[in-house]
């Protein structure tokens, strides 16, 4: 198999790169939709790790878990989109830095 010829470190580097991209998005972007996409990147970075380790370990559990994460991500998007809609309705924008009225 092709997969076995690729060392595990490559996958980990890929995962770390995707994670950093997501993190960068969260820390720098103000658009709530981009924000959500960044969160998806974070989740999928974790997914890559799960699948890879599962593969090398010879156990199916990690992959099953990745499926759960996918489902969870879908749910999170559903809720997230709802929040974004409400955000837009209340502030007329999808800028996350606008919604600071409930702090203190």
């Amino acid at each position: 198999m092709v997969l076995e010829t690729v060392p595990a470190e490559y996958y980990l580097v890929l995962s770390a790169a995707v994670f950093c991209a997501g993190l960068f998005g969260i820390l720098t972007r103000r658009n709530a939709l981009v924000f959500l996409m960044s969160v998806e990147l974070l989740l999928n970075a974790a997914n890559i790790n799960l699948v890879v380790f599962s593969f090398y370990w010879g156990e199916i559990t990690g992959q099953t878990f990745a499926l759960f994460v996918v489902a969870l991500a879908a749910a999170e998007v559903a809720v997230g989109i709802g929040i974004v809609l409400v955000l837009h309705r209340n502030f007329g924008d999808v800028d996350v830095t606008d919604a600071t009225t409930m702090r203190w």
Partner: protein
Amino acid sequence: MALIYELTPAIVLLPLASFALALFFGQWLPKRGAVVGSLATAGTLGLSLATLGWLLTTGEPHNQTWYTLVDAEATFDLTFGILIDQLSAAMLVIVSLIAFLVHVFSLGYMNDEGEPGLSRYYAGLGLFTASMLAFVIADNLLMAFVFFELVGLCSYLLIGHWFTDEAPPSAAKKAFLVTRFGDYFFLVGVVGVLVTFGTANFAGSGGFPALAEEALAAGETFFGFGAETWFSVLGLLVLGGALGKSAQFPFHTWLPDAMEGPTPVSALIHAATMVAAGVYLVARMYGFYALLPTVLGIIAFVGGFTALFAATMAIVKDEIKQVLAYSTISQYGYMMLALGAGSYVAAFFHLTTHAVFKALLFLGAGSVIIAMHHNEDMWAMGGLKDEMRVTYLTFLAGSLALAGIFPFSGFWSKDEVLFETLIHALGGSPLLFGAYAMGLAAVFLTGFYTIRMVLLTFHGDPRSDTAEDPHGVRWNVKVPLAILGVLAVVAGAINLVPVEKLTGAHVAFLEGYLERDLGLLTHGAHYSELLHDYAGYQSAYVGSEVTTLLLGAGLSLGLALLGAGTAYGLYRGASPARHTEKLGGIRTLLMHNYYQDEYQVWLAEGATVRLSAAADTFDQGVIDGAVNAVSSVSLFAGSRLRRLQTGIVTNYAALLLLGLLALLVVFAILGGWL
């Protein structure tokens, strides 16, 4: 168990049912609850008479725990129970008789006069009667305390019946607070008794008086005190409640103010329920008090002093109910004197006759007040004897009984009180002479103020327009008066001790009844033994017993007649002068009740309020100051720290990341990776 004892709870439940009915359905009941109340109390009276009859014929008492409130085997149980012995059976009859007559009389005093709040009034009467009856049959001190408090609550409700006026609510509050002050000590006493003996039962060999006797005989110590010292403390604590309810000095101030309530309520309070409760409580646990000579001495002195003290105030009062109020305080002083002087039978005898004639006098005064269109000033009356024949004759009978004139009931009981005090004083307790002297002096004053009251109210020329043409009263006023009038004349016949001693005929029925041993250790003969063995009360005579008897009776009757004669000499005639005004400064002092009210108000406002104000300042300044200082530090720190909460998600994410990095660095250093 005899059928009659299975019905005992009904004695209490009947008036309680009338209370509930009048409270919830009063608007739709005939006469707004008066009929139901009268029927319930009539049923109670019937059951009480049957109980008394059963006890007289079979001599079988009843002492049973009925309901356990708290079951705690390791310490002590808190229970409710029923104790029917000679004392409670006789008291049940007195209470239910007076309650029944007061209900009937109320038809005339409240319904016919169109008073407001009738269903509330009858509900109050029902609860009052029920709580007093439950107090009477209580088999332990805790249950007695609970119903003692309920009696106090009901008196508050009834004294304040006309709550839209200014005076009644204030009088009601005063009655409640003053008696509550005494009850506070009572409560501590109840707890003390429970802790000391593990039981608060009155009767039997397992009751606390019997345990106290054993402990005294064995010379046990409690909490580092000798048995007698500790029991005296307990006895005095419980006595606080009794003195408060029985309006003994210095707790007497609430009673004259309680005249603000409707007159039938005054009759009920003064004759059979509230005020009698204090004396009854001491009589109930007399097996305990008989062990404690110090406490007995205090009771005798407080009683004798109150008898005299209240009588002096009664001689100057101008309102008919005020005179009666002070006479009540004075007469209960006699009962306390009798109990303190070791004469249990005489005390209960006087309680019985007093219940009859004082209820009669209050109802008679109520009848006069109806006739006078609710004017209570005796100087506006006069000449009522021809207009109100029944009221006059019955009132006169009650007054002669109160004054202690032979052969009315009051003579026999008061004479026995004084005689017993005298022989115990002669028998080696010389301190009782002081109490005896005060009691004797009060006899003279009682004769004076009673006859003054009768003459001013009924004799002479009418001194106002209403007195000339008084409002008539109906059967519902006259019938209770007639019943009580007859009883006031003949009630002394239940215990003609002097006659028995002079002729040898067995006519001291009450004494025989109370002294009979029913196996509960609550009979008079047992108390006499205790008084002899522990309190050191012995009898001695001047010459022979008969000589002392005649001497004592002659002295008290002579003084009563002298007082009555003095009043007659001063106040007879068509238009008597206001002789008491010649007393000048003394009259002012007496009219102001020795400034006892002012003194108590000063205690409350001058002393207590200032003390509480100081405590408040300390609390606000020092205690709250420390707390506020601590909290202000937190508040300041919080107001700075909260700036971290920007509300911007990105910042939180950055902080999370920084936190994670910081943790990683820490772990790295601690784990030795760096």
